[in-house]
């Protein structure tokens, strides 16, 4: 599979990141790289610091040490909305949709960064504001088609089943046309069919839009099938990094997952 893939240069470089809350260390000196158009999985046991890592990458947590290079720009700290403006979008471990709004509106919020017409135009709903709204609506409809959620376009997302909510959340992230898409356990709590659908959407996203994807997932089958490259964290430290087959055979990884006898 790798032969046919067109993987480019480094898009994101995380360098020697350390993060702690008070005295509790969440991440210790982790470095990793995600290259353009690849699918990179971050795995590890519960509490390994995976979600914290994503939070650092999109600027929600501020690491005490280390730097992040994204698209050639080096930064130490960042506000989340700036990360979003720079092209990082993500989904969340526990669905974080805007429950009071319809599917369509939720995905439209993903376009918000690209909508610039000021409120006076919008207040009157004429001319440029209206045209802008319609252009973005059209783009969002493409995403709705792509994710096969036409039928629930106008349904408040609070009423949707879990699997569909996850899909809408992916749609919201895609609407921002991200360079880097971070998915935090996109398949948690899904049945087999839903997982297969989700895998298909992830692969299609990567194929069709050339989006780079960073993925946290517990289902090893999924991880090994989807990813080009796997990073393993344990207790906030990186213990392995490489192509799936190599990582699978790594003794440290096996120990972390199965436990080691301390004698």
């Amino acid at each position, binding site marked *: 599979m790798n032969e046919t893939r067109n993987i480019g240069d480094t898009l994101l470089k995380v360098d020697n990141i350390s993060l702690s*809350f008070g005295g509790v260390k969440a991440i210790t000196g982790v470095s990793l790289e995600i290259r353009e158009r690849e699918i990179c999985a971050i795995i590890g046991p519960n509490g390994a610091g995976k*979600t914290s890592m994503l*939070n650092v990458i999109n600027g*929600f947590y501020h690491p005490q040490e280390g730097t992040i290079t994204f698209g050639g720009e080096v930064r130490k700290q960042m506000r989340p909305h700036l990360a979003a403006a720079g092209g990082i979008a993500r989904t*969340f*471990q*526990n669905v*974080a949709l805007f429950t009071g709004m319809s599917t369509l509106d939720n995905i439209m919020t993903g376009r918000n960064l690209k909508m610039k017409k000021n409120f006076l135009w919008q207040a009157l709903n004429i001319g440029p504001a209206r045209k802008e709204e319609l252009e973005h609506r059209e783009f969002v409809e493409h995403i709705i088609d792509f994710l096969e959620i036409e039928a629930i376009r106008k349904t408040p997302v609070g009423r949707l089943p879990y699997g569909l909510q996850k899909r809408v959340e992916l749609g919201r992230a895609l609407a921002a046309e991200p360079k880097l898409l971070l998915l935090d356990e996109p398949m948690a709590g899904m049945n087999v069919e839903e997982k297969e659908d989700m895998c298909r959407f992830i692969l299609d996203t990567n194929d069709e839009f050339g989006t780079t994807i960073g993925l946290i997932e517990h289902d090893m089958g999924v991880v090994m099938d989807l990813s080009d490259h796997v990073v393993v964290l344990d207790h906030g430290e990186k213990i392995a990094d490489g192509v799936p087959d190599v990582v699978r055979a790594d003794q440290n990884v096996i120990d972390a997952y199965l436990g080691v006898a301390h004698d």
Partner: protein
Amino acid sequence: MFRQNGSFAKTMEVLNAIFVLPFVDMFTEPVFFAEVVVGGLLTGVMYSLVALGFVLIFKASGVFNFAQGAMVLFAALTLVGLMEKGVPVWLALIIAAGVMVIVAVVIEKLVLRPLVNQPDIILFMATIGITFFLEGFGETVWGSDIHRLDVGIPDATFEIGGMLLNEFDIWAAAIGAAMVAFLALFFRYTVIGRALRAVADDHQAALSVGIPLKTIWIVVWSVAGFVGLVAGIMWGTKSGVQFSLSLIALKALPVLILGGFTSIPGAIVGGLIIGVGEKVAEIYWGPLIGGAIENWFAYMLALAFLLFRPQGLFGEKIIERV
């Protein structure tokens, strides 16, 4: 040139009046300053008493009970009404406490239970409805005149180190302190206290381990009612039992944001800070800006404080997760 000098002098004068003179006054008349501070502390205890009722209910049921002020009024009206009918003080106290339990039961049955799991703002709204009802009901039954309340707390003035103090204020502070100690022990060491803390943490989880939510709520609202009664006695003795008593709820709110909605020590310390801050500002700076600042000063003080410490006095720093 002369005009400029004049306006310069005027500016300096204003700055002097704001930033220098009040402090000079404080240092040159330390006894008076101490009297102001002590007066503030004692008023602060009274604020704390009202705030305490809010905290109890918020802690246990997550309800921002705007009706706490109305409960203070209602309790005091009931007490004073009974006493005017010739009922002895001790009996009137017991009956008034009993009435507050009934109020708690009725509120739980008719208002809280149908609104379980509704958003906070809806419950807040319902408590405003309760406020209106209690105010209307209390005045329908007991009339809207100002009633004098005297439950026999001594009220003489005496002097310590040149400061004029009132015996009643000291009593109020002592009773306030005793209530806080009692509540703190109650929360920490009794079965109901532990259940209360569990409910405060997570309703659903508490229910699932078999804690009877209904009973807990009735207990909490009753206790808040007793606290209201005590506050009502204090404030009522001081300024007469009248409609404006329910407005002291508005005085307790800045205390709440300062001390945190869920912290009993926060309510106390917050009350003291607000009491002192308000008194000092009123005496030393109030005249400069036309006086009558007591309606908003406490809010501004609490706000300014929150800008530096958004989690309140005793809140822990919140780590947000996604």
